[in-house]
């Protein structure tokens, strides 16, 4: 079991694995506290990934590889040259075409069993509630704080776990939000920092690393094993290979989570 107690996002009515799935996932089913039940839980799970850029491409790819049943992908826009140093689900051949359709196609090449709902929109005030309502777990990979705070508001309201992945230059931050248990983003920063710009320095190897870590957090939440980053902020700087895990506190006066989950 995960040590951070939270309502089980998946439930107990689990689908059987077929012969092909057992063969595909055999090596991860060998992980003792994951096992076949863990795989059934992944098969039964749905995850929202927004957006599918440097972080989200890798999150989605790893969840497709792990055998998550359904991915909801939200990402607007068309592929540009400047996406192609890190957005691993995009291709040169797809330049000028829909990002989210490229992501869907690449993921299905890898795992044709995967159900995908591809939505060519970023998170907005208008769609945030509906996007979060479609899934069991949210993975926030958005480059704008406004999108992150909207997702945060919705996961607190709908009591769903969210993995928050972020990076800048050679540094990364990662935490897991279990509403009512661990700090939400509004506990940590109630408004977007003024100097932040949507375009930022990034290597694909940095965003890809954070994407893998974020995918593993979601796998642990869904399969209910290991220990998540709820109540902790993982930070790293790949420039000097400094890795730290800091303990973070809920804000007892948080305007979002203090009243709904005291």
């Amino acid at each position, binding site marked *: 079991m995960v040590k951070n107690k939270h309502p089980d996002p998946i439930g107990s009515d689990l689908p059987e694995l077929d012969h092909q799935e057992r063969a595909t996932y055999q090596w991860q089913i060998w992980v003792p506290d994951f096992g076949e039940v863990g795989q059934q839980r992944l098969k039964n799970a749905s995850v929202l990934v927004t957006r599918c850029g440097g972080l989200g491409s890798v999150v989605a790819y790893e969840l497709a590889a792990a055998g998550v049943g359904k991915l909801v992908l939200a990402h607007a826009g068309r592929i540009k040259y400047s996406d192609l140093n890190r957005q691993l689900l995009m291709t040169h051949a797809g330049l000028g075409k829909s990002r989210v359709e490229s992501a869907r196609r690449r993921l299905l090449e890898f795992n044709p069993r995967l159900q995908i709902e591809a939505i060519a929109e970023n998170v907005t005030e208008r769609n945030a509630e509906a996007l979060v309502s479609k899934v069991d777990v949210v993975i926030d990979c958005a*480059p704008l*704080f406004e999108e992150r705070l909207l997702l945060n508001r919705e996961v607190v309201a709908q009591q769903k776990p969210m993995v928050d992945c972020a990076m*800048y*230059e050679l*540094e990364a931050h990662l935490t897991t939000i279990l509403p009512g248990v661990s700090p939400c983003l509004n506990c940590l920063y109630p408004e977007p920092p003024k100097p932040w710009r949507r375009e930022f320095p990034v290597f694909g190897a940095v965003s890809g690393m954070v994407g893998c870590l974020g995918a593993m957090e979601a796998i642990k939440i869904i399969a209910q094993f290991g220990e998540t980053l709820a109540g902790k902020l993982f*930070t790293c700087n790949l*420039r000097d290979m400094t890795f730290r895990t800091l303990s973070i506190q809920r804000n007892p006066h948080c305007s979002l989570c203090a009243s709904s989950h005291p």
Partner: protein
Amino acid sequence: MIIRIHYTTQLRMALGIDSEDFEAPRDSTLLELLQRLRQQHPEALEKYVLNARDELQPSVLLCVGDRHVGNDLSGPLQEGEEVTILSVISGG
């Protein structure tokens, strides 16, 4: 007493250093330390950490050792402690 300060992300880029050892009077509080740092690096500290009215910028997280201290800057620091100033980030 000497306090080691770690700077991250945009603040690190603005200052051009990862960390520094900072001399502060014994029993300084976190607020007093930040005020002294602001004297040393006025532009970056005001923009990212502590404004001229001594209010924390809403996007900064302060840790003493491995512990996040929230908005309470009143606690005294001890010789040899390390303070990390995290500017939140959102790169995707």
